[in-house]
Structures are given as structure tokens and as C-alpha cells.
């Protein structure tokens, strides 16, 4: 195994994934620097979610390397290992634990020993409690802490999932379409929240909403048919002719 060490937080090199002969990712290469926030755009089916599946160990690439923190080969690890390395993920469809309270969702997510034995004996420490209180404030769900997560509105579920992501204290956050189904005000608040998170952590955001991406004001990568079509500032990318052709559709 000769993985070239890089300074990037995450480095995808020549990654390909096929489903029954269909290439969802096609020699995709991407480097994200520590502390960076990167927006990924691209038409439906471009392979954005598949890229996250590959990074988080849900899907094995047919070819290519996925390197975390310069030297860790993610393609050899499973979901739990990768999560415990400090890579957190928010799904496209909000997935919270519906039958648990908002608070318990955070209790499950909070960075702690994940082994079965430790969790049989677990009791909440004051430190964990105050971290959960702070998280509830951040995601504006303090009044709903005792409610079942299943009874939250769509936007609240998205926020709870972001809260769970933060609770994990990851180094790298992968956020898949966080503002889908949100009102304009909620979208704006989410952009603010992500920017705040980005002060300490590396973030990769997949999003369709161009106003939202513009508001983030970060480097943008446009995917198309499983590889990178264009990369640069939002103005550069949205002025790119190929991008206009395949994505913006004008």
C-alpha cells in the first residue's frame, strides 16, 4: 500500500464506483484542506451522495484511494471505525431516532465510549449534561427536549441531526442537503450555523440551493456524472459554460 501522504484533511484520488455497470463515480479526485468548508453542487444523480457513502464506509470503491488526515486509508475501514476517527455525517433524508426523545438522540450521539459494556453501566455525567444543554441551545430545541424526535417538524429534524453531528465532536462533517424543505428563514439560520461550526471543523456541504451556497461564500466543486466538472468560487463556477449547460440548464 503506497499512500502518498498529503496535508489534506480528506483526499480522494481517482475514485470509481459502479452499480451494475453504471458508473456513479468516475475517477473522482478531490482534496479538502483542514479547516476548510467546501460546497459540492451538481445535478441529481451526479454522485454526490455516493461520494459521501464512499467516505463514510457505506460503499466500497472499485478503484482509487480515500485518505483521511494524510495517512489513514478509509477504504479499509467500516462505518463504525470511520465514525470513531472523527467523521460525522448528516443524511440527505433526515434520519433521527423517532422513538427516542430529542435529548436521548443527543445522548446517543455525544462523543463517549461506544462499546456495549460501557453503555450498560453508563450514567450521565454532569459534563455530558451541560454539553447537551448547550447543544440544545445551539440547535434551538431546548423547549422540545423531552418530545419524541418523530414528532418534530421537518426543519427541526434537520437541526436535530446537525446537533447530533456536533455532539459526536467530529473533525470532518459531511452534510448532505441540509436545507431541503426548509423555509427561507430556516435556510439562512442553517447557513449561519454551518459557518459557526466551520470555525473549528472541516465541513463538506452538498446542496442544490444556490442562494444558500452563495450565502456560505466558500469554494465550490461541481460534480457531473461522477467526476469534477468545475471548481472555484461560486461566481467562477456558475459562469463556467459546461456547468451552465449540464446543471444550471440555461
Amino acid at each position, binding site marked *: 500500500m503506497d499512500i502518498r501522504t498529503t496535508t489534506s484533511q480528506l483526499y480522494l484520488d481517482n475514485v470509481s464506483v459502479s452499480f451494475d455497470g453504471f458508473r456513479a463515480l468516475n475517477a473522482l479526485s478531490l482534496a479538502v484542506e483542514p479547516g476548510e468548508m467546501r460546497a459540492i453542487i451538481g445535478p441529481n444523480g451526479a454522485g454526490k451522495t455516493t461520494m459521501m457513502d464512499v467516505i*463514510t464506509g*457505506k460503499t466500497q470503491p472499485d478503484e482509487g484511494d480515500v485518505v483521511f488526515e494524510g495517512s489513514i486509508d478509509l477504504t479499509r475501514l*467500516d*462505518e*463504525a471505525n470511520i*465514525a*470513531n476517527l472523527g467523521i*460525522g*455525517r448528516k*443524511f440527505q433524508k433526515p*434520519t*433521527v*431516532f*423517532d*422513538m*427516542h426523545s430529542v435529548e*436521548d438522540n443527543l*445522548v*446517543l*450521539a455525544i462523543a463517549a465510549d*461506544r*462499546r*456495549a459494556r460501557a*453503555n*450498560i*453501566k*453508563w*450514567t450521565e455525567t454532569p459534563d455530558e449534561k451541560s454539553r447537551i444543554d448547550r447543544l440544545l441551545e445551539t440547535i434551538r430545541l431546548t423547549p422540545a427536549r423531552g418530545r419524541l424526535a418523530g414528532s418534530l417538524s421537518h426543519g427541526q429534524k434537520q437541526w436535530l441531526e446537525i446537533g*447530533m453531528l456536533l455532539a*459526536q465532536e467530529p473533525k470532518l462533517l459531511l452534510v448532505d442537503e441540509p436545507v431541503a424543505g426548509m423555509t427561507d428563514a430556516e435556510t439562512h439560520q442553517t447557513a449561519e450555523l454551518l459557518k459557526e461550526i466551520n470555525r473549528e471543523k472541516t465541513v463538506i456541504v452538498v446542496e442544490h440551493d444556490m442562494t444558500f451556497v452563495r450565502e456560505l461564500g466558500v469554494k465550490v466543486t461541481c460534480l457531473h456524472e461522477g467526476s469534477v466538472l468545475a471548481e472555484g468560487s461560486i461566481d467562477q463556477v456558475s459562469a463556467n459554460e459546461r456547468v451552465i449547460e449540464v446543471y444550471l440548464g440555461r
Partner: protein
Amino acid sequence: MAFPLIRVLDRSSLVFLALVAAAAVIVPALNLLLPETSPLHVPTYLVALFGKYVCYALLALSIDLIWGYCGILSLGHGAFFALGGYAMGMYLMRQIGTRGVYANPILPDFMVFLNYKELPIFWYGFQSFPYALLMIVLVPGVLAFVFGWFAFRSRVTGVYLSIITQAMTFALMLGFFRNNFGFGGNNGLTDFKDILGFNVQAQGTRAALFAASCVALALGFVICRALVTSKFGKVLVAIRDAESRTRFLGYRVESYKLFVFTLSACMAGVAGALYVPQVGIINPSEFQPANSIEAVIWVAVGGRGTLTGAVLGAILVNYAKTTFTTGMLAPYWLFLLGGLFIAVTLFLPRGIIGTFNHWQQERLAKRDAVSSEAATRAAE
């Protein structure tokens, strides 16, 4: 403290434990202390029948732990129950000694009949009660561990898992039916004489076995409660509702599943071991796939994911079964059971206790909403 008692034993758990304790004392007392002429006297055959229900309740509890809380629908739990039963049966066989038809001090009757020259190695040690106790837990536990290790690591879930658990119990049934398997073939193990030196048929022994079954049920219940109310239990529910999400949080789902599945199999084994001396026989029909499915129906009827519901379901359905199968409706029992399952799935998907809990929560939520509304109005 690792298990705050208040968390583990909430009010309804205490009510449940009090009921089990009362049964453990009252049934034997009414049987042993009252004369047979008294209207309150509980005849010995009923003590054994109730004991059987309690064993079924423990089996149901073990199924609820994995199905109700972790979403593992085992349709082969009857196999672990039967294995525990066989381990106890082997102890009981070895207690017969020279009192058998062939009066062989070592070999049980069926072995003499089948021309065995010496005791098979896996029968060694079963003359000792502590050894048998160990095997009652160990044999189902090891089988479940090995089975679960392969199944959960390869991420077999849902219907596929249910089907392979059925296949497991079916394969064991075929094995145990064979004479050369060494467990008495289709006749199984029977004609027991003593347990710990007491006659298994005696009134006092029956009463003691009933009480022991109640103790095992209560213990199983407390263990399950301690687990499901801990953070471990929260992880189980998370796995049940969103397995892949749980993985992305960094939990090793297969270890959690393997742990509860193995524990649950051990509990089922204990239930089977207590069952055998009370019914007086264990044979391969206990491995029938239909038995395992019936046990799942008990849990569905009582309410999965409630523990007390599993116990209630097991007792109610088996009481109904006893009533029906001893009357003229006997040939229709299976249709009735099937109908009951369909009715519960359609009209009472939460089961009896689940529906009751849900109704109570709704009422509380409504009351909270009303009072907080009143509070805001007052504040204005």
C-alpha cells in the same frame, strides 16, 4: 451506582414483580395448605399447568428483548428453549439409574434398547446438577453466539434473518429425531423420577418448581429492565429504528446484537429447563418451527417492546389454548391463533400493553399541553 433502582424498577415494574411474587407464594400455598375439599384448593395438575405458562412467559420475555427492543425477529427461539429443556432432561435421565426398565445404572433405557454399549461423551457429567445448570445456559448461549456471529457480521437482517432462524430450529428438529443422534430419537427423554432427590411427580416438588419458575421470570424481567433502561437499551432501540444511522454514530451494531441475542438464548434455555420437569417430557417436536412462531405471536398480542406485555401475552394466549384445545373447538385452534395474529396486527398493532401505554402517554401529553397553555395565558 450502575443501575439506579428507580430507573430500572418504575411503578409498573414493581406492580409486575409484586404480582409474580404473590403468585409464587399463593399458588403453592393454596395447593399445599388447603384440604382438597376446600373451594379455594388449587389442584396439583393446575400448579403444573401454571408453571408451564410461567416458563412460556420467560420465553416470551427473551423474545421481546431482541424483537421488541432491537428489531431481531427470531423465528427459532423455540430451539434455545428446547436445548435448555434437553440439558435438564439429560440430568433427569441420569437420575433414574437402576430404576429404569432395563435397570442399567449408567445407560438410560433408550440407549440400552438401541444397543449402546457405553455412554456417549456428551452425556458425561450430566449426573451432576451444577454441571447440568451450566449446560442449560451454555449450550443455547454458545449456539446463539456462533449463529449470531456469522449472521450479524454478514449483516443478515429482517426477513432473511427470520428465515435462517427457522431453518436452524428445523435442522435441529431433524437431527434430534434421529435415533443415532443420542437423545432418544422421536420419543425424546421421559419417565423422569427425581430432581435433586425429590420425586418430580410429588405435590411438594411441583409447587417448588412453580415457585422456581416465578423466581426465574422475575429475575429475567429485572435483567431485561436493567438493560433496556440503560444507555445500552437506548442503543438497541436506535438499532431497531435506524440501524445504519447507528453505525454512522460509531456504534458497532453487530456486537450489540450479538450480546442481546446470546443473552436472550440463555434466558430461553432456562425457561426450557424449568418447563421439562413440569411437563415430564422433552422430545424433538419442541423444535417444531411452528412453536417458535407461536411464541412470537404471544409477544405481538401482549405488546412488543414492553416486557410486561410479552408475559401477559404468553399467559393469555396459552390460557386460551388450554381452554380451546380441551373442548370441541380443538381442531380449530390453529385457525383461531392465526386469526388472532391477523386481528392484532390490523387492529392492535401495539398489542395490549403497548396500546394501554400509548393511550396513557397521549393523555399525559394532552394534560401537559393544556396546563402549559393555561400557564402562558396566565403569564399574559
